[in-house]
């Protein structure tokens, strides 16, 4: 309130910082936090119901809980068995060991999605390509997951078995434009036709299953981080027991057009952060 000295709650006088000093203080703390500058997320990000923040908040509480456990462990010198993180949220997060070994966990939400649906020739698929620009450098990927929500979907028999498989798009061929092919984002021309695919993970489930599906895409993530040009995205197929291709949307797999709390995202765990050397003043 105008006075140059303000009494802080503990009774010690607090010096009022000048504008420049305040900026320096913030910059120093951001540097300690390993941030080049103050992030400025778009306002919409503050909507609480988005899937990735909800998942990451559960992960945060799990990690914070572990940090407290470790402190109690050391002080009481009691051996506390490391509890596996299960059932924390509607989504079961990664196993405890992956989380606690990671220095950084990044959830990627900016994704370009393309569907080959029932209005196109079979096989049907969904493709997802994530923006990796904000991924920390100097750290290696210890695990990466692709999370997509499956609703009930259009199915005659909820007990039928579906095989959901995830591939890394390893390469795309030049003349792959089929009739009606469309250009898509990221400056890369996408269209139909064959690409080189690398199988990452498969899950078998009932047609009536509802909930989050988690696929291990660590191999692809490692590949993308070697060089961004390899980031051609993920492709998801759904097939019946007798090999018939099923439109993923009809099977209930929600893409970017689903509710915010059920949109697909990726979670990448990084470890071995390079120690940030402080710039001499």
């Amino acid at each position, binding site marked *: 309130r105008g006075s140059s000295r303000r009494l802080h709650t503990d009774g010690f006088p607090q010096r009022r910082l000048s504008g420049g000093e305040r900026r320096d203080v913030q910059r120093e703390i951001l540097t300690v936090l390993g941030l080049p500058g103050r992030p400025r997320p778009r306002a919409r990000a503050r909507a609480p119901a988005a899937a*990735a923040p909800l998942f*990451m908040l559960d992960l*945060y509480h799990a990690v*914070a809980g572990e940090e407290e456990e470790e402190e109690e462990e050391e002080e009481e010198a009691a051996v506390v068995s490391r509890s596996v993180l299960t059932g924390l949220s509607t989504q079961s997060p990664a196993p405890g060991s992956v989380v606690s070994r990671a220095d950084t*966990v*990044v959830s990627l*939400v900016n994704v370009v999605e393309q569907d080959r649906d029932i209005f196109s020739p079979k096989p049907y698929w969904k493709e997802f390509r994530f923006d990796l620009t904000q991924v920390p450098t100097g750290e290696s990927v210890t695990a990466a997951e692709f999370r997509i929500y499956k609703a009930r979907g259009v199915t005659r028999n909820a007990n039928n078995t579906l095989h959901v498989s995830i591939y890394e798009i390893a390469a795309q061929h030049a003349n792959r434009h089929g009739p009606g092919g469309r250009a898509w984002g990221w400056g890369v021309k996408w269209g139909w036709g064959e690409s080189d695919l690398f199988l990452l993970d498969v899950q078998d489930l009932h047609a009536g299953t509802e909930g989050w599906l988690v696929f291990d895409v660590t191999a692809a993530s490692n590949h993308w981080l070697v060089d961004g040009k390899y980031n051609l995205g993920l492709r998801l197929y759904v097939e019946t027991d007798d090999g018939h291709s099923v439109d993923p949307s009809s099977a209930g797999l929600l893409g970017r057009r689903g509710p915010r709390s059920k949109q697909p995202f990726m979670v990448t765990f990084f470890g071995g952060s390079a120690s940030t050397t402080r710039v001499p003043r």
Partner: protein
Amino acid sequence: AARASRRRQHRRNNNDLPHPNKLPGIFDDVHAAAGRQICRRHELYVSFQDLGWLDWVIAPQGYSAYYCEGECAFPLDSCMNATNHAILQSLVHLMKPEAVPKACCAPTKLSATSVLYYDSNNNVILKKHRNMVVKSCGCH
């Protein structure tokens, strides 16, 4: 040595050092000689709210960082987490206070803290930052 030992006997009575099982970091107001506190951990809360960062920091709203402060005066009892060197330095300081300073009260154990935040692309990042929280203090 005899005279010294009698003087040491006399110092221990009014020095009122804490009982060994009262470790630094437990918030008693323990006083070394002449009312000064022995080396111990003090509360220090870093508030992201005060920094005006809650538009991008999701959790926590701040965290307890603590700091170390207090005397490393002779004799450095076992409860002061003193290094061997600090013990020797405090002895030399006793003899030559002008030439050699007392040992420093500093963190002997630090732990990590995690911060969950949005980046500028609305990705959500959970980052563990090591050596951010003082767990125990000692004389160095």
